[in-house]
């Protein structure tokens, strides 16, 4: 076989493609929005769930060193599981303010939920039709975002907060 440059190129290309396939197998094909870490949140106006005159916006959050924004609902079972971690965070650490956003829920149900399990939130916002969740890049409930005082997203937790993530939040916000 004549060894020509074309043959070498073709062989190399084939081997390159096969290696990519092999590496591709190791990648997670499920998409999560972790790539959004580092982006800023902005342009929102949250109405308080029980008080139509009370609002919170980005200026208010910039006053906090860290803010944890947690999307929850009374009909969401995993939200109950993570609630204890939220309570923990609210009790112990003044560095973090916790904002709860009540997603596609009824005011009375949300209030009962918080009465029953405890209220870890410094502010409970209302998102009756879910549109506000889109502003925060949310796609599942429960979901939480940790931002700093520049409103940059430092951490994204899709699904209920577990022990590892809880400790991670503590570490970051020390």
């Amino acid at each position, binding site marked *: 076989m004549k060894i020509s440059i074309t043959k070498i190129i073709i062989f190399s290309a084939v081997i390159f493609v096969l290696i990519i396939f092999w590496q591709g197998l190791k990648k997670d094909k499920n*998409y999560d929005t972790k790539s959004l870490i580092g982006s800023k949140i902005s342009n929102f106006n949250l109405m308080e769930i029980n008080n139509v005159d009370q609002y919170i916006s980005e200026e208010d959050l910039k006053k906090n060193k860290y803010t944890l924004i947690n999307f929850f609902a009374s009909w969401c079972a995993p939200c109950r599981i993570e609630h204890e971690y939220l309570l923990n965070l609210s009790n112990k650490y003044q560095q973090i303010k916790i904002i709860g956003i009540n997603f596609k829920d009824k005011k009375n149900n949300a209030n009962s939920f918080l009465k029953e399990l405890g209220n870890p939130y410094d502010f409970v916002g209302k998102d009756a039709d879910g*549109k506000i*969740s*889109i502003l925060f890049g949310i796609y599942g409930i429960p979901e939480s975002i940790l931002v700093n005082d520049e409103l940059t997203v430092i951490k994204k937790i899709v699904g209920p907060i577990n022990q590892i993530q809880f400790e991670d939040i503590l570490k970051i916000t020390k």
Partner: protein
Amino acid sequence: MKVKILFFIISFSFSGHLFSDDSQTKLLEIYKNLRCLVCQGQSIADSNSDFAATIKLVVQDQVQEGKTKDEIYSFLISKYGEWIVYQPTLSKNNFLLWILPYVVFFLGGFLIFFISRKNKQNKTN
């Protein structure tokens, strides 16, 4: 033969779809280009998930505000990443994607051209 074809087509013209609703068309086009993040390979148009329903509401609002399709896509990309649109953007990353097929096409064309050119030369020799 051609008359028969024309008759065929004319007789089916009584279906009344002469007027289309432009905003619905625009909405559906956008829904079809958005990917449902919680589904296994479905568009927002096809998905029955909660997430899809929410996205539809947001898109409807923005269309009513008069935003263009590109503005809506940019907004959603800024929130969810490029993965959410089915049509890859024309960025530095995706440049190769759009160009390569045409490169292959032109290469193929040249090849065929050269082969038949070579034959002409062989014939004249």
